[in-house]
């Protein structure tokens, strides 16, 4: 499905956002790395679908009724084989919040290699149009509000400057004995989201907010591990 198809089918289903699976397919359309994954139905044995995926896995619930998957008990990490996947899905289905929700299924995906967790976001400013944002994940975004904004489209130098602007930028360079992350991979993500021809400008009629949280950046690359897209009210603009 193309980006437009993904949005059209979400709208056709009466949804105001893209689910995680659709969101990641949208990112892949724009060349942003997402973990390899499969969708598994609630009562389906996962085994046959997992060939081609490499453990360890993450299992996540996909439901239009559940926006905060972790809070709802809908995320399990570090799963090593198909038996554990089936068990994780059964356990989630028994969870009170998930039991009441409409279920699209469960996303089983490869765990991203460890690295720094960043947030890449987008939102539509009423005066300036699409804005792109980056920050380090967790407390840096939520408590310190240590984020950098730019108006789309950004250029490569803008993306560089956004990272340098973060107070926690030193963490990207390998503070506290860790390996420095691949800044170029992160800059590529920012450009694919907020650059000329990037996701935010191409889809500015349809995307009200984008949230790639987290993007895990290691020495070798950047992977968007979760993605949410809030659609503009029907009719765009």
């Amino acid at each position: 499905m193309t980006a437009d198809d993904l949005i059209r089918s979400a709208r056709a289903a009466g949804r105001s956002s893209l689910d995680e699976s659709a969101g990641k397919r949208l990112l892949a359309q724009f060349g942003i790395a997402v973990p390899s994954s499969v969708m598994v139905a609630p009562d389906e044995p996962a085994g046959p679908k997992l060939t081609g995926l490499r453990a360890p896995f993450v299992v996540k619930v996909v439901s239009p009724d559940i926006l905060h998957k972790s809070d709802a008990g809908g995320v399990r990490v570090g799963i090593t084989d198909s038996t554990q996947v089936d068990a994780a899905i059964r356990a989630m289905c028994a969870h009170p919040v998930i039991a009441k929700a409409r279920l699209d299924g469960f996303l089983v995906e490869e765990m991203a290699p460890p690295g720094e967790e960043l947030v890449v976001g987008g939102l539509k400013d009423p005066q300036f149009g699409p804005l792109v944002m980056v920050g380090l994940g967790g407390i840096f975004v939520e408590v310190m509000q240590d984020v950098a904004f730019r108006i789309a489209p950004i250029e490569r130098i803008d993306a560089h400057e956004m990272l340098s602007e973060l107070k926690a930028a030193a963490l990207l360079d390998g503070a506290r004995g860790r390996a420095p992350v691949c800044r170029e991979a992160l800059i590529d993500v920012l450009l694919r989201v907020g650059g000329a021809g990037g996701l935010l400008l191409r889809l500015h009629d349809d995307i009200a907010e984008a949230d790639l949280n987290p993007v895990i950046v290691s020495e070798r690359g950047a992977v968007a591990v979760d993605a949410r897209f809030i659609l503009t009210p029907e009719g765009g603009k």
Partner: protein
Amino acid sequence: MSTANDILASFEPLFAPKTIAVVGASATTLAAANTFIRRMREFGYPGRIFPIHPNADAVDGLPAFRSVAQTPEPIDYLYISVAAKHVPKMLAEANGRVRFAQVISSGFGEVDEGKALQEDLVRAARAGGVRLLGPNCLGMYSPRGRVTFVEGGSVEVGTVGVISQSGGLGTDIVRRGQARGLRFSAAVTVGNSADLGPADLLEYYLADPQTRVIGIYLEAARDGRRMFELLKAQRAAKPVVILKGGRTQQGRMAAASHTGALAGDDRVWVALSRQTGCLLVDTLDQFLDTLLVFQALTPRASAPTREIVMFGNGGGTSVLATDLFSRLGLQVTPFAATTLAALRALKLPPGSSITNPIDTPVGTLQQDEGRIAEKILDAIFANADPQALVMHLNMAAFVGRTRGDVLGNLMQAALRVQSRYPGRAHFVLALRSDGWPEVEARKREFRDQALALGIPVYDEMMNVGWALAALAQHERFVASRRASP
């Protein structure tokens, strides 16, 4: 996309109108529009002025006309200051005979009950073929067209182009700016910006060869996207200084009740500045100080301002300024051994400090008609490579000294040294006063003398710091964007 020439041509009737009509001047009392007519005459406006009046035959000694449709010639600039409800009908009658109308009247979109009326106003202007400025503004100042809304605006045509969403602040910008040495290519108050807005005038100033630096006071930016695109495309070819009101939540509430549109989130303004190189300032003084630095100095992207030599009388002032400059990213680095040796060789009288900052009593500076200062500066430039020289003088030390033209000698010395090392360092002067009348008088005299030589003059080192930090930011931005593909 219109070319620069199209843009200049389309705004020519506004900035140099051949004919002006005035709505709202009284035949019997003194209304705002009468004051406008008087100012236009005093300012030497060369064209014809047509008062529009419902029944008087003459206003302020000029023949009056019943409507804008009845003037003997088409109208380039129409000034309207009557009750809001009468304005739309007047514009609808223009019938293509009016190029620009500036609506001073308030009671439109800035208040809830006027929002519908503002929509009527825009529709009427479109129907009448008129481009609209305002409503809820004060007017326009264009020295080359001899049009002014400001009392006492200079007839000298300068290089600073101003856009102000507030009328009152527009007056402050022109008058206070002029007192500090600013000279304007034009200043336009745009109020509610119902038709033409800040982005339209920004586009004009970017195209206008007379304008070398642009200052904008903004409260709301409905045309923010276009401003961003214009600023991004010009890649800081002309410095643009933005004083944005309503960047805090409380300020936004004040702004909302003022101009009637919600201002954007502060972060977007920081973003705008970082990626287009425009300079954000927080106060009117910073705004004027920054405009002055760009009016007087030519930015040097090849060597962005960083190392500063501070030279003057006043040790404590130098220390405090060194701290402040450091916080602003400017360095007052002590001289290296070779520079110090050259300065020591001058055998300055006791009481002078020759590390950077250089602190010298006025008595020393005055010796030999300022030649001591010239020798000091020569020694510095021959051995060190600062990007700016800041001279600061405590004016109190000059009062009562009548012997010789101390300041003239000092400035000439600095300019001679500057010309021996062309393209090396910006030269900025701070004339510090304690506010006593005789000191203020001396300072005024010194300031005029310095401005006549094209030297930017500031009140305090703080103001110098702001201005140089803004200059440095601009220079660094231009350098970074030149280097990038």
